[in-house]
């Protein structure tokens, strides 16, 4: 019975492209795209509290894989390749970052994303002699929407499963106290690497799926560091330690960006900035925590009445 609700919700969301126009569908794609990224980000960073800015490295690798391979093999195989490449890169990155903590980890991951961008650029410029690549795939926005929806559902299911599985417990223990974790027999390296890789594979797929939407792929488009920053902000805003937290950060923020840029195109930055500051002050623990507090207060009032 309880499994029916998410399935129904999924079905309802899957039906959306049949009822809405191109713009709401575009919004949907944007929201799902960031929803996937933020949820995937929180898979690793939520329990461990490591703030990663490498999101766009994987996102861009996914997009580039599609751009390079789209003409060579069937689309599902392309996605599989993207996932594999993402996995390999994630394992390497994960191993390199094991000893880093705090701000060092943050900036390291940022440097990594930039390095990926520089190396791709250098390769394209010197080897292929083209910087931009074209992705002409017969994939319409509704297909992208469905794929992202599927990916989000899978990611959420994974997140849900992880929160209940041993590996999720291991990660929470590591996040709370790595010393205790190791003394309880938890392989910290293995666990962190596994989750980091899983999260990275999802990010890679998010980039791969969205690549056909832009037609034209170049490093400055798909390795845009803003993506990493927005992902972090959304997940932090929603609350990275809850299943739907990152999503609940991504949806309102995405709509907020859209609303602001539409209504205040010339003062967008200022208003957005002020709102951010306000949010930090007003919602210190994220949207979901604030919501919990609100409902808790409500329940208390009811109980008293």
């Amino acid at each position, binding site marked *: 019975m309880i499994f029916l609700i998410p399935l129904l919700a999924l079905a309802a969301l899957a039906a959306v492209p049949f009822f809405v126009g191109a713009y709401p569908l575009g919004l949907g794609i944007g929201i799902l795209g960031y929803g996937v990224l933020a949820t995937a980000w929180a898979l690793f960073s939520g329990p461990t509290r490591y703030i990663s800015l490498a999101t766009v490295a994987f996102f861009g690798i996914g997009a580039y894989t599609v751009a390079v391979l789209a003409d060579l093999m069937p689309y599902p195989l392309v996605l599989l390749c993207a996932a594999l490449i993402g996995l390999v890169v994630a394992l390497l990155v994960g191993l390199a970052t094991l000893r880093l903590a705090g701000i060092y980890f943050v900036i390291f991951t940022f440097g990594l994303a930039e390095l990926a961008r520089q190396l791709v650029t*250098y390769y394209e410029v010197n080897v292929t002699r083209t910087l931009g690549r074209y992705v002409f795939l017969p994939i319409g926005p509704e297909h992208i929407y469905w794929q992202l929806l599927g990916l989000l559902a899978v990611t959420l299911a994974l997140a849900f499963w992880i929160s209940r599985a041993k590996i999720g417990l291991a990660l929470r223990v590591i996040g709370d106290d790595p010393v205790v974790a190791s003394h309880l027999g938890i392989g910290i390296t293995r666990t962190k690497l596994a989750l980091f890789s899983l999260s990275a594979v999802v990010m890679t797929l998010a980039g791969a799926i969205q690549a056909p*939407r832009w037609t034209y792929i170049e490093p400055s488009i798909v390795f845009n560091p*803003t993506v990493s920053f927005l992902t972090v902000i959304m997940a932090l805003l929603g609350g990275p330690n809850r299943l739907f937290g990152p999503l609940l950060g991504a949806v309102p923020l995405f709509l907020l960006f859209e609303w602001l840029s*539409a209504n205040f195109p010339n003062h967008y930055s200022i208003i957005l900035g002020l709102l951010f500051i306000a949010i930090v002050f007003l919602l210190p623990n994220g949207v979901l925590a604030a919501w919990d507090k609100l409902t808790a207060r409500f329940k208390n009032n009811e109980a008293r009445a």
Partner: protein
Amino acid sequence: MTTLSRRTLLQAMGTGALATALASLPTFAQDRTAIRIGYAVSKTGANAGGAGISTIPNYLLWVDDVNKAGGLELSKLGVTLKLEVTEYDDRSSAEETVRAIERLATQDNVDFILPSWGTGSNLAAGPTFDRFGFPQLAGTAVTDMAPQLVQRWKNSFWFLGGGHDYANALVDLLVKQRDAGAINNKVAIASVADGFGIDLSKAATPAFQAAGFELVYDKTYPLGTSDFAPIINEVSGLGVDTFVAFSYPPDTFALTQQAVVANFSPKIFYLGVGTAFPIYPNVAGPNHNGVMGVGGIDPDSEAIAAYFERHTALVGQAPDSWASAVTYASLEILGQAITRVGDLDKSAVAAEIASGEFDTILGKVKLVDNQLRALWTVGQWQDGKFVGLAHTEGKAAREPVVPKPAWVPAS
């Protein structure tokens, strides 16, 4: 207090969603009081610098010009309507660009959409323009793919040519100078590792080689490079008379300053995007004279002179002398096509743009295969103007000054 604010915030978000939903209700042509023009341009982000010079001012200027003239006459509807603008910021992101166009097309129901700045964003927006049947007048995209893209997207129009146009014109010009004995056979090229730089260098390298030039330096540098001392130092020791940089604005300025400082003053000093910017003479000081670059204008054209004046009066600075006039001309073409069609039928307007001949600040213009083929390809700063030295179809506006004056050290 916090609860209140939190609620207000949520309400504000809700109101926004509602407003967008309401805006989606269709309005009827009969009720219309204006022609709705929409565009999403980079007001922030990496592309904001380019859009702020070549794109946004021209959109403002065109709307202002048309509205001052009373609007566009729609003979089939029997009205003359002014332009009304819906603008968004694409935040220099391809994703935002695509979605903003979807929004303009389906939510705001604008009549025409103007594209954003840059090659990448125009290519990214192509399928979306195509899907909704809007003519796409790409005034700031340089791509050799244009002939194929036109096949793919029937309503796309490409106004700024491809890398080959600029590279070949430059090589032709240099061949003449070499054959006249004005310069030696050695050329150095530095290109920015970005779409524009690579497109041009890809076209230029074989062209130079085919013309028998010796390429003693041909390297790229990453976007965002701020220090050009190593490149200039190396090139200055190679004995070249010709230095070519397919560069982006900040690099264009930095390369100039570095060359002046290093007293590397080749006979031909050619730079990429930004050379034609009105700010360039401020940056280079007296040394801007004789610098060549991509683009150019006809200094004898009264239409261009008037355009420069109107532009300066409205936005407070002169336009750039490459893509600005082309962008403005593309808008003139759009306006004239609308008037000729007499209503707001997008495909009819697109067909008219493709086939008609138009009177623009660039002179009489007729698109070939949806592309503007009449382009200024090489320009040079002469007497405070960035004059065209080579044109794909017409004659040069001025003869090149070779060698350029030696650098004057800044005081």
